[in-house]
């Protein structure tokens, strides 16, 4: 009974470790694929730089829009209170 439990736990652990290794391997491959046409550092740095840029630009745009809308709404409210 105890040995059956032991084997099933071991089997589960091995499966999980294997899954983890496969995932890690997949990540390494994915990283290589994005710039696989060129093995140069310049390409990799451009890829990383533009990835950061493409991730941050939408956040900045949304933030800028919310700030603008808030300020505009506040100004309109003050205007209506004065009149």
């Amino acid at each position, binding site marked *: 009974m105890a040995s059956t439990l032991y084997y099933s736990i071991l089997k589960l652990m091995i499966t999980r470790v294997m899954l983890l290794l496969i995932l890690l391997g997949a990540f390494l491959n994915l990283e290589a694929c994005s710039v696989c*046409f060129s093995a*140069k550092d310049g390409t990799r740095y*451009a890829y990383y730089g*533009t*990835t950061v840029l493409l991730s941050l*630009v939408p956040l900045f745009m949304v933030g800028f829009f919310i700030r603008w809308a808030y300020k*505009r709404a506040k100004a309109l409210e003050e205007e209506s209170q004065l009149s």
Partner: protein
Amino acid sequence: MQETQTTPKRSKKIASNGVIAMIMFVGCEVMFFMALISAYLIVSRGQLNWPPLDQPRLPVEMTAINSIFLMLSGYLMFISNRKFISKQKEKATSYLFYAVLCATFFVIVQGWEWMNLIFNGLTMFSSTYGSFFYLVIGSHALHAFAAIIMMIYIYIQMRAGKASSSAFNTSQVFWYFVVGIWPVLYITVYLN
């Protein structure tokens, strides 16, 4: 029993629907151009010679001078808006006219440059460099062309005294985007 009905107080809009829609559209367009710039930078960094040695060089100085007209057009549009707000409709109309003139001049000179480049062998299919150049700069030119049509429409409306501030502001947002993105494209494509 009589119920008193109160009409809810209508709150003022922060901007017209047109302006809000245009801001959202411009947001999408910014991402579109960012994606093009990203692809351009990644590909260009992977090449040994960029621009390729067998391809003609871009007219950097002439485009820089031409860019001044685009910037001037943006500034004239801004002045036109100031005049429009202060109810000086005639001045606003004339400033808008000059803004359209500068913008048209920019697009015409760009077209002339393109003709020279095509004549010298830089085409969409001559190299990756050519493909990227026409795709990135062509997309901007297409936007500039659309914005000019929009500005001409507003100018006609303004002359007839029918231009609404909503339509004028909407076209302004788009034109500021076209003017604002150009220095980024110029530095990336022409000075890279």
